[in-house]
């Protein structure tokens, strides 16, 4: 068979059968479900009634009728800020740990400690820390005299989202630090010697050497960060369940509530397609921002 296809044909055949298993898994558990959601978003359907085609009614309801959708959309974009925050903090920690510091490995392990923890556990313990009376944060703030009345973090409309973002940053910080740390350690030292010889100050070395060399790692962190903020269902669901009001309602929790909570799978499918479209746009923007060949350089 190989002689028939010639060198190029045999190459494509090899590529196809190497890619096949992975693509099969993604086809079964990502592409087909997305297709099912897209098909369902144009139907009116519940588990026991046959589907009827209703065109864009679901989307119409979503864009015009459902103000929770717009709140959840805005909250999701705000919640996405947990990615850059985590990346900036992780970069700072990675820079600190990167030098020949004694005990760097211990610091690294402690910061990474929170990542393998179950998200439900993170949500439960942070929900207690933010508690108005018995919580630790209020206890420390009052003991230091920084605040006279305890702050109701998860009960106030403007503090709830930052509190949830802080808990998310706490959990993903270790992961981003590890990615950036490996990026830092691969920068050849001679680049720094050359810059130091030219008398470049520390911040100049950082901007002209460290950041450009770290760009692929930063892109990897950005993509995973965006992904995490769109799928951190457990953290928000257990910590605030979208409350107070819909102040911390994310698209993903609203999809779960309308889908399984209210058995409206057709409407939840429309929300899913909307979220997927939004993510496509965001990834395309990140793709451009990182020099136009994200897929290549990640």
């Amino acid at each position, binding site marked *: 068979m190989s002689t028939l296809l010639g060198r190029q044909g045999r*190459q*494509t055949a*090899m*590529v196809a059968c190497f*890619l096949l*298993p*992975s693509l099969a*898994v*993604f086809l*079964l*558990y*990502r592409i*087909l479900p*997305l297709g*099912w*959601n897209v098909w369902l978003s144009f139907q009116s359907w519940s588990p026991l009634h046959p589907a009827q085609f209703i065109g864009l009614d679901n989307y119409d309801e979503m864009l015009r009728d459902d103000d929770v959708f717009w709140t959840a959309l805005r909250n999701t974009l705000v919640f996405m800020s947990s990615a850059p925050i985590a990346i900036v903090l992780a970069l700072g920690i990675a820079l*600190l*740990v990167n*030098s020949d*510091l004694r005990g760097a490995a211990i*610091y690294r392990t*402690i*910061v*990474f400690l*929170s*990542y*393998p923890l*179950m998200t*439900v*556990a993170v949500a*439960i*313990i942070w929900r*207690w820390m933010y508690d108005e*009376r*018995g919580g630790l944060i209020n206890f420390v703030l009052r003991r230091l005299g920084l605040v006279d009345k305890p702050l109701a973090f998860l009960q106030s409309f403007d503090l709830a989202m930052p509190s949830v973002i802080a808990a998310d940053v*706490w959990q993903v910080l*270790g992961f981003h630090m*590890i*990615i950036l740390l*490996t*990026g830092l*350690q691969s920068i050849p030292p001679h680049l720094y010697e050359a810059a130091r010889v030219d008398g470049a100050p520390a911040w100049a070395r950082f901007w002209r050497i460290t950041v450009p060399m770290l760009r*692929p790692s930063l892109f*990897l962190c950005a*993509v995973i960060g965006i*992904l995490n903020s*769109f*799928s951190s*269902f*457990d953290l928000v669901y257990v910590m605030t369940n979208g409350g107070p009001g819909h102040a911390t309602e994310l698209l993903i929790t609203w*999809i779960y509530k309308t*889908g399984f909570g209210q058995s409206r799978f057709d409407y*939840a499918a429309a929300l899913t397609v909307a979220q*997927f479209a939004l*993510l*496509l746009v965001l*990834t395309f923007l990140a*793709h451009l921002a990182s020099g136009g060949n994200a*897929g290549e350089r*990640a």
Partner: protein
Amino acid sequence: MRARGMWPRHAALLVVCAIMLVPFYWVVKTSLTGENIYAYPPRLLPQAPHLFNYVDVWYLIPFPRYLLNSVIVSLLAVGGNIVLNALAAYALTRAFPGRRWVVLLLLSCMLIPFQATIIPAYLITARLGLLNSWLGLALPMLSTIVCIFVFKAAFEAVPRSLIDAARMDGLGDLRILARVLLPLCKPAIATNVILSFIWSWNNFMWPLIVTRDPLMQTLPLGLARFLSYVEDTTGALYAFVVMVLVPGLAVFLMAQKEFMRGLTAGATKG
């Protein structure tokens, strides 16, 4: 970075470590005492700590059986990840028509949130006849797109001369991958091991939907036993959380050295 005196660096790191460790300390402390954490003022030191909450957790849920299920599913996921991701990544390093489209397809596959795929994924697994089975539990996690890109970058970092020499010796693609590329990308393998282990070990929603037989459940599903309405299971709940955490941590500590070099090789040369 010239060492401008280690002192400020240690101070900053100690603050960071405090912030990271305090919630942990409370989880472990409550697992030892089982006290009401909403009591005011919060007590810093544990009152009459004892390890018996861990014994309770061992007997309250069929812990050994859940642990066995979790280990098997995670081993399947880790093994699947290494093989499938390496094959896919190797294919992506070769030029073929439509390569950019496959890369974009993979990137977009990453963007589909799991919660939205539960029902179709269940229907597909049912048709495959893999319900209530270890393979059915591990199948969606057999390949992860992020890890494919990690492997791809690591393979591209290997100098082409090595690959061409191997091809000259008449090695097929599979043997080039196994004999030349993978031994040189052990760090990328470590990255795959840690990420796929932690993601499959902590997976909660998929096992909940796919398993009907309680004996097929994985460890995280034991959590429900400690969130019961009727009993005060605070101590046991936190002990359970610590026991679920330990394996994930152990895998990280074991693979930490390679884990760090792995992403490096990929990140810069890509």
